[in-house]
C-alpha cells in the first residue's frame, strides 16, 4: 500500500534524524516530510489515533493522523519514542499484507469512513506517554532498521527480508494495543467531540495551539485550532476534509500581507514562519484553474471551482462581456435555485446575487430571461455549463501581477497554465509559452525570464521585468514555478539541494502535478458526496447518476496513495524525485517509478537533514530548462545514437555526419554562424590558401569543475559567466549519472565544488603572449562559445549522457577532447605559402588557464525580443554565481584521468612519420573562464607537398555537467564547418576527473 510508503520515508528520516540527534532541526526537516510524520512522532497522538483503530487499515491512519497533528507533541518527545512509532507503522504496514484479502471489503469502508470524518473529531489520549515509552524503549533503535526494511519491502511488494519476523511480533503487540484503543474509541464516540484544548493537559508537554480562520469559497468561515508549529499542509488538509474535497490539488490557502498582496501558504512549511506576525486568517481558493473543468472527477470539485469563478467574476478579476455575465449568472441561478418558477421567483429574486462588478437592471433582466431557458438542468449540469463558458474567457486562470518593463512602462504579467502572458492595459502584448521559457529567476525586485532563441536566432535572450518589490518578485517567481510544474511536468521537480550554505530560494512546487492529480482522481471511488449549494440548499446530484461503482481490489488498494492524504502526497513527491534522478541516470528505465526511488530515499533524507534552509535573498534558477516534455525517451536514445553515430562516422571518416532530426533541431541555432564568426572563418581560410596544401586541426576540450569560480566573479559579468553559472546550477546531475551508482547522485547534486581551484592550479601553465592574434583570438573565443553553448544545450536537453564515463563520485572532471583534422591536398601551389609564412611561435599545448574573468563575448547576447514588447536584455551575472559560496576547507583533490583517442583510419601516418620541413608553426590561445582554446597551426612541407595541420585544443573546465559526448560532437562538427576542406584525423578526449571524498559534509 502506498500509504505506507509515506510513512516509510518518515521512518527513514526519523532514524536518520535520531542518529544525528538533531531535534532542533526538525522543524526544517519537517518541511520536507509529510505532515503526519510530525504527528506520528508525538506519542500522545498514537493514543489519540482513534480512527485507525476500528478498521486498522492504512487508509484510516494517515487521515486520522492528519487530524491529530494539531495536538501533536512538541518535537522533543519524538526523539525518545521512535520505536513506538515504528511499531505503529509496522503494524499498519503488515496488516494489510497479511490480511489483504480479508480486508478488501473493510478497506473500502475504511476509506469512506475516514473521509467522512469531521476534522473536529479528536480522540482523547488515555494511554499515558510513559506507558508507551517503557513498552517500546527496549526495542528502540535496533528496530529502526528492521522497520526500514520492512517498510521498503512493503512498498515494492517483493518478499520481505530479515525484518519479517520482527514485524510479525510487532503486529501481535499492536493488536493488543489495538483492542485497547478500540475500547477507547467507542467511549469517545459516546462522549462526542473533545476540544483540542484539553489535549495538552493530558500530554506531558503542552502543545500550543492557535486558532485558524479560513474563509471558504461560499463565504462561510471555518475555524479550527491548530498546533502552532503545524505546517501548511495540515491546515489545508483540515479544510479539505471539512469541505469533503478530494481533488484538492487545484486549491490552496491564501493569506494576505495587505489588502492586495496575496501569498499562497506553502504546505511544506510551517504556517507560523510564513505568516509571521499576520493573523491566522486564510482564504480557501482555487490555485490552479483546470483548463478543462469537465475533466474533474467530482461534481463537488466543480462546484468549488464555480464558487471561485463567481467570486472572480463578481469582483472583476475575471472580465466578461455583458452577454457572458448574463449567461453565467443564469447558470448560477439554475444551479442554486433550480428551475425558474414564476411564482416563487418574483422580480427581485435575483437581488441577492451578484453576477458582475457593476450589475445593471438590464443585466438582471437578461439573467432571468436566460434562466428560464435552462429548465431541467440539474445543479451539477448547470455548474458544468457555467464552467464550459467560463473556461473560454481569455482571463480564465490567469494570475496577474503588476510589473514594469525595462522602460518603466506599467504592464501586467499573467501566469497561466500555458505560460506567461504580458499585458499592457488590457491588451496582450506578448506571450511566452512554457516550452519557450528556459529559465525563470528573480533578483531583488527584478524578475527574469530567459527564452529560447526563436527561429533564425542564435542565442537565448533574457527579458527582465521590474516588480514593485522583492517580495512581489519572489511571489511571481514562485507562482511561475508552481504553474509550470503543475501544468507542464509529469511529476514535481526535486528541489535543488545544497550541501553547504547556499543562498537563494530552493523553493519548488512539491504538490501533485495536474497529471498526477488527474491520475489520482481517476481512482476516486466514492458515491458522489452530498453537499449543499449555498443558496438553494439543494442536493447535488451526480451527472453520471451511478455513484457507486464496484472497483477491483487492486485499484482500491492503490487508492489511498493516489488520492493521497499527506502520506500519499509524499509518496508521489518522492516518486517524482526518483524519476528526476532516473532521468539522469538510466534513462532507459522507464517504468515502475514507485520502486526505483527506493534506493534514493535514504539519500534524500540525509541531504535534507543537512540541508540549510535558505529562505533568502537571491534566487537560484528554477530548472525550467527541463522543459523537455516533448522529448521522449526515444529522442534521448536517438540522441545517444546520433552521438555514437557521429563517432562512428568520424571513425569511418565519413565526410559529414548527418545529424538526425533531433540533433538538427538542437544544434541548429548554435551552428548557424554568427556574422562575426563567419568572417573569422574567412580569415582562417585565407590563411589556409596560403598554405594551400593541407592542415590539421585539433580540438581539445577539457572540463573542470567550475562551480567555485563563480563565487569570485562579480555581478554584472558576461554572458559567459552566465553560461557557466547555468551549468553549475542545472547540470550537476550529469555528473552523478556518470558515476553510475545511485548513491553518487546525492552528492553530485550539491552546488558546491570547492576543489577546482586546486585543479586549475595544476592545469595552469604559463601563458604566451600573442601578438597579432587578436582577431584570431576572437575567433577562437567564438568557437569556444559554441562549444560551451553546446554543452549547455546538451545539458538542457539531455542532462546526462556520459555513458562513457565510469568514474564514480566524480566531483570534478576534466575532459580533453582532441580532434585532429587533417587533409592533404596534393596541389602544386606551394610557392605562395612559403612566402607568407608567419612568424613561428612557440609550440604550446595548453594556454593559460588562469580563470580570470574576462569580459568575453558580450556579443553573445542578442536580443530575440519579439516585435511587440519592450524587453530588456540582461547580461546575467546572475544569482547562480552568488549562490555558490565557497567554504574554507580545501579538500584534497584526487583526480582520475582518462584519455580516449579516436583516430581516423584514413590517417596515413605520413604526417607523423615524415619529418618534413617545418614552414611555420603558430599557436593561438584564447580563453574564457571555463574554456581555453589553443589552436596550433603548423605548416609543413613534405616531399613537395605542403601540409597544414591545425591542432585545436579546447580545455573546458566545467562542472562535470557538460555533456562530453555532445561537446565532442560539436567540436568535431565545428571543426569541420570551419575547415570544410580538411578532414578530422584524430580526436583525443582527455578527461581528468577529480575523485571526491566520500562525503564533503
Amino acid at each position, binding site marked *: 500500500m502506498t500509504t505506507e510508503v509515506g510513512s516509510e520515508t518518515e521512518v527513514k528520516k526519523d532514524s536518520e534524524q535520531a542518529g544525528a540527534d538533531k531535534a532542533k532541526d526538525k522543524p526544517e526537516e519537517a518541511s520536507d516530510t509529510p505532515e503526519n510524520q510530525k504527528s506520528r512522532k508525538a506519542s500522545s497522538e498514537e493514543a489519540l489515533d482513534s480512527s485507525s483503530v476500528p478498521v486498522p487499515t492504512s487508509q484510516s491512519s494517515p487521515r486520522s493522523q492528519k487530524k491529530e497533528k494539531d495536538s501533536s507533541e512538541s518535537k522533543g518527545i519524538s526523539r525518545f519514542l521512535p520505536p513506538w512509532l515504528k511499531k505503529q507503522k509496522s503494524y499498519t504496514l503488515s496488516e494489510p499484507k497479511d490480511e489483504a484479502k480479508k480486508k478488501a471489503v473493510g478497506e473500502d469502508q475504511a476509506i469512506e469512513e475516514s473521509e467522512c470524518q469531521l476534522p473536529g473529531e479528536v480522540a482523547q489520549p488515555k494511554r499515558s506517554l510513559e506507558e508507551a515509552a517503557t513498552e517500546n524503549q527496549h526495542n528502540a533503535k535496533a528496530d529502526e532498521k528492521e522497520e526500514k526494511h520492512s517498510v521498503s519491502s512493503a512498498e515494492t511488494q517483493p518478499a520481505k527480508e530479515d525484518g519479517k519476523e520482527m514485524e510479525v511480533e510487532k503486529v501481535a503487540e499492536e493488536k493488543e494495543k489495538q483492542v485497547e484503543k478500540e475500547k477507547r474509541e467507542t467511549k469517545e464516540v459516546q462522549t462526542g467531540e473533545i476540544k483540542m484544548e484539553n489535549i495538552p493537559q493530558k500530554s506531558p508537554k503542552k502543545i500550543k495551539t492557535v486558532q485558524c480562520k479560513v474563509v471558504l469559497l461560499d463565504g462561510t468561515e471555518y475555524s479550527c485550532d491548530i498546533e502552532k508549529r503545524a505546517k501548511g499542509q495540515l491546515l489545508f488538509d483540515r479544510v479539505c476534509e471539512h469541505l469533503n474535497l478530494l481533488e484538492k490539488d487545484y486549491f490552496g490557502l491564501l493569506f494576505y500581507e495587505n489588502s492586495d498582496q496575496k501569498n499562497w501558504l506553502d504546505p511544506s512549511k510551517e504556517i507560523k514562519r510564513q505568516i509571521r506576525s499576520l493573523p491566522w486568517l486564510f482564504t480557501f481558493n482555487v490555485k490552479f484553474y483546470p483548463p478543462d473543468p469537465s475533466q474533474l472527477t467530482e461534481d463537488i470539485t466543480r462546484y468549488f471551482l464555480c464558487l471561485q469563478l463567481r467570486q472572480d467574476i463578481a469582483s472583476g478579476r475575471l*472580465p*466578461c*462581456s*455583458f*452577454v*457572458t455575465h448574463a*449567461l453565467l449568472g443564469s447558470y448560477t441561478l439554475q444551479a442554486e435555485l433550480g428551475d425558474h418558477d414564476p411564482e416563487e421567483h418574483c422580480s427581485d429574486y435575483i437581488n441577492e446575487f451578484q453576477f458582475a462588478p457593476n450589475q445593471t437592471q438590464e443585466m438582471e433582466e437578461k439573467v432571468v430571461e436566460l434562466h428560464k431557458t435552462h429548465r431541467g438542468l440539474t445543479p451539477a449540469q448547470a455548474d458544468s455549463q457555467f464552467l464550459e*463558458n467560463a473556461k*473560454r*474567457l*481569455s482571463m480564465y486562470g490567469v494570475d496577474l501581477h503588476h510589473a514594469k518593463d525595462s522602460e518603466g512602462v506599467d504592464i501586467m504579467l499573467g501566469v497561466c497554465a*500555458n505560460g506567461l502572458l504580458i499585458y*499592457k*492595459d*488590457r*491588451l*496582450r*502584448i*506578448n*506571450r511566452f*509559452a512554457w516550452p519557450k521559457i528556459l529559465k525563470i529567476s528573480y533578483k531583488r525586485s527584478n524578475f527574469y525570464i530567459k527564452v529560447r532563441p526563436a527561429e533564425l536566432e542564435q542565442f537565448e535572450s533574457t527579458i527582465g521585468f521590474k516588480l514593485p518589490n522583492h517580495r512581489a518578485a519572489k511571489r511571481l517567481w514562485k507562482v511561475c514555478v508552481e504553474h509550470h510544474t503543475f501544468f507542464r511536468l509529469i511529476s514535481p521537480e526535486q528541489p535543488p539541494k545544497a550541501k553547504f550554505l547556499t543562498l537563494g530560494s530552493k523553493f519548488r512546487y512539491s504538490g501533485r502535478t495536474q497529471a498526477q492529480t488527474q491520475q489520482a482522481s481517476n481512482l476516486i471511488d466514492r458515491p458522489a458526496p452530498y453537499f449543499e449549494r449555498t443558496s438553494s440548499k439543494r442536493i447535488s446530484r451526480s451527472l453520471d447518476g451511478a455513484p457507486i461503482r464496484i472497483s477491483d481490489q487492486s485499484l482500491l488498494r492503490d487508492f489511498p496513495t493516489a488520492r493521497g492524504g499527506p502520506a500519499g502526497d509524499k509518496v508521489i513527491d518522492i516518486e517524482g524525485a526518483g524519476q528526476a534522478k532516473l532521468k539522469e541516470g538510466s534513462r532507459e528505465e522507464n517504468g515502475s517509478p514507485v520502486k526505483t526511488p527506493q534506493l534514493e530515499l535514504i539519500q534524500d533524507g540525509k541531504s535534507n537533514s543537512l540541508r540549510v534552509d535558505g529562505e533568502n535573498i537571491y534566487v537560484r534558477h528554477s530548472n525550467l530548462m527541463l522543459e523537455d516534455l516533448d522529448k521522449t525517451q526515444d529522442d534521448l536514445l536517438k540522441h545517444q545514437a546520433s552521438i555514437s553515430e557521429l563517432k562512428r562516422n568520424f571513425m569511418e571518416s565519413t565526410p559529414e555526419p548527418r545529424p538526425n532530426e533531433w540533433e538538427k533541431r538542437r544544434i541548429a541555432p548554435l551552428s548557424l554562424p554568427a556574422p562575426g564568426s563567419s568572417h573569422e572563418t574567412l580569415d582562417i581560410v585565407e590563411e589556409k590558401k596560403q598554405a594551400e596544401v593541407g592542415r590539421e586541426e585539433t580540438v581539445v576540450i577539457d572540463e573542470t569543475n567550475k562551480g567555485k569560480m563563480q563565487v569570485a566573479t562579480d555581478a554584472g559579468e558576461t554572458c559567459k559567466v552566465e553560461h557557466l553559472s547555468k551549468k553549475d546550477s542545472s547540470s550537476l546531475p550529469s555528473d552523478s549519472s556518470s558515476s553510475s551508482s545511485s548513491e553518487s547522485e546525492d552528492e553530485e547534486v550539491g552546488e558546491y565544488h570547492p576543489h577546482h581551484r586546486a585543479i586549475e592550479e595544476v592545469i595552469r601553465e604559463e601563458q604566451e603572449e600573442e601578438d597579432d592574434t587578436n582577431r584570431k583570438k576572437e575567433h577562437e573565443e567564438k568557437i569556444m562559445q559554441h562549444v560551451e553553448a553546446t554543452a549547455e544545450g546538451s545539458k538542457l536537453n539531455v542532462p546526462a549522457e556520459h555513458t562513457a564515463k565510469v568514474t564514480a563520485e566524480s566531483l570534478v572532471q576534466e575532459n580533453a577532447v582532441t580532434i585532429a583534422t587533417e587533409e592533404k591536398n596534393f596541389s602544386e601551389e606551394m610557392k605562395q605559402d612559403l612566402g607568407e609564412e608567419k612568424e613561428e611561435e612557440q609550440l604550446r599545448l595548453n594556454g593559460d588557464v588562469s580563470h580570470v574573468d574576462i569580459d568575453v563575448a558580450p556579443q553573445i547576447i542578442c536580443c530575440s525580443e*519579439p*516585435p*511587440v514588447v519592450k524587453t530588456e536584455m540582461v547580461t546575467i551575472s546572475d544569482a547562480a554565481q552568488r549562490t555558490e559560496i565557497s567554504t574554507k576547507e580545501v579538500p584534497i583533490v584526487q583526480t582520475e584521468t582518462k584519455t580516449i583517442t579516436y583516430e581516423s583510419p584514413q590517417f596515413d601516418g605520413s604526417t607523423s612519420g615524415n619529418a618534413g620541413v617545418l614552414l611555420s608553426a603558430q599557436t593561438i590561445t584564447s580563453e574564457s573562464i571555463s574554456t581555453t582554446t589553443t589552436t596550433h597551426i603548423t605548416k609543413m612541407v613534405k616531399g613537395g607537398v605542403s601540409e597544414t595541420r591545425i591542432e585545436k585544443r579546447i580545455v573546458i573546465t566545467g562542472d562535470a555537467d557538460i555533456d562530453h559526448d555532445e561537446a565532442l560532437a560539436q567540436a568535431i562538427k565545428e571543426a569541420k564547418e570551419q575547415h570544410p576542406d580538411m578532414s578530422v584525423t584524430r580526436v583525443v578526449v582527455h578527461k581528468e576527473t577529480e575523485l571526491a571524498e566520500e562525503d564533503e559534509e
Partner: protein
Amino acid sequence: MAAPGALGRYSHAVVRALPEVPGAAGPGGPLDLAKAQRQLGVFTGILRQPLGLQVVALPPAAPCAVLLEDLAVLQGDTALLTRPWEPARRDELGSVRAVLEELRLRVVAVTDEGATLDGSDVLFTGREFFVGISRWTNHRGAEMVADTFRDFAVSTVPVGGGGHLKSFCSMAAPDTIAIGSSEAARHAMKAMEQLSDHGYGRLSVPDDPAGNCLFARLGAGGCALVHRSPEEFPQSLQPFQKLPGCTLVPASCSEVAKLGGALSSCALLVNTRPEA
C-alpha cells in the same frame, strides 16, 4: 460568448453604394466609377447568393465611405463603433450606428478622444482578436476593443508597410489564417502566432491583397470563401483550392482597392442571432 464555430455565421450584410460622382480618386489612383460600381454590384450579389445574407444598403456618401468595415467591429451581439483615423470619416458613423441598432445589436462607441481605430485593423479569429497597430490604429484604439469584447484575448500586432492588418490577412477558414507573403505580412503572422494560445493554420498566398478574403458559413452546413479573382491575382488562386469543402467564390475588387480597401472592407457582416 462565442462558441467555437461561430466564425463566419452571418445573417445580414451592410453595404454602401458609391456616390455617382465622377473623378473620385483614392491613394491607389483615380477610380473607374463604372467598373467600381460593377465590382461592388457583383460583390453584393455574392453576399445575397450564395452567402444567403440579407443585404442592407446604406445611402451613398463619400467614395471611401464604401469601406464600411473600418467603421465598426462586430462580434456576437455587440458592435463597437470605431474612431477612424481620418477625422472626416467619423461623420459616417451615424448612419452605421442607426442601422446596427436597428439590427438590435448592442452598439458601443469608442469614447476615448486619444484613440484611433480602423475596423480593418481588427482581425477576429473566432477565438480572439488581433488588433494591428498601424498608422491608422493606435494602442488606445486597441484598448477599446479589449474593453468592449472582454471575453476575448485582444492582442496587438505591429503592422508595417503602411497598410491595415487585414490588408494582407483574414480568416480563410476556422482556425486558418490566410496571409500574404510580404515581409510585413510575415512579421505580423509571426507576432500573431507568438501571441496566441491557439495554433492557427496558415494559408500563405503570394499576393498580399489576396490574403484578404471572406469566409462565411452557408445555411446548409457548407461554407464559402469569397476571394480575389484569379484575373487579379492568378498566383493566389491555388492556395485557396486546397481548402477542403469550401465553395470558392471569386470576386474582383481592384477599384475599391484604389481607395485602400479590400474585399472584406466593403461590407459589415452581422449575425443577429448569435445565440442560435
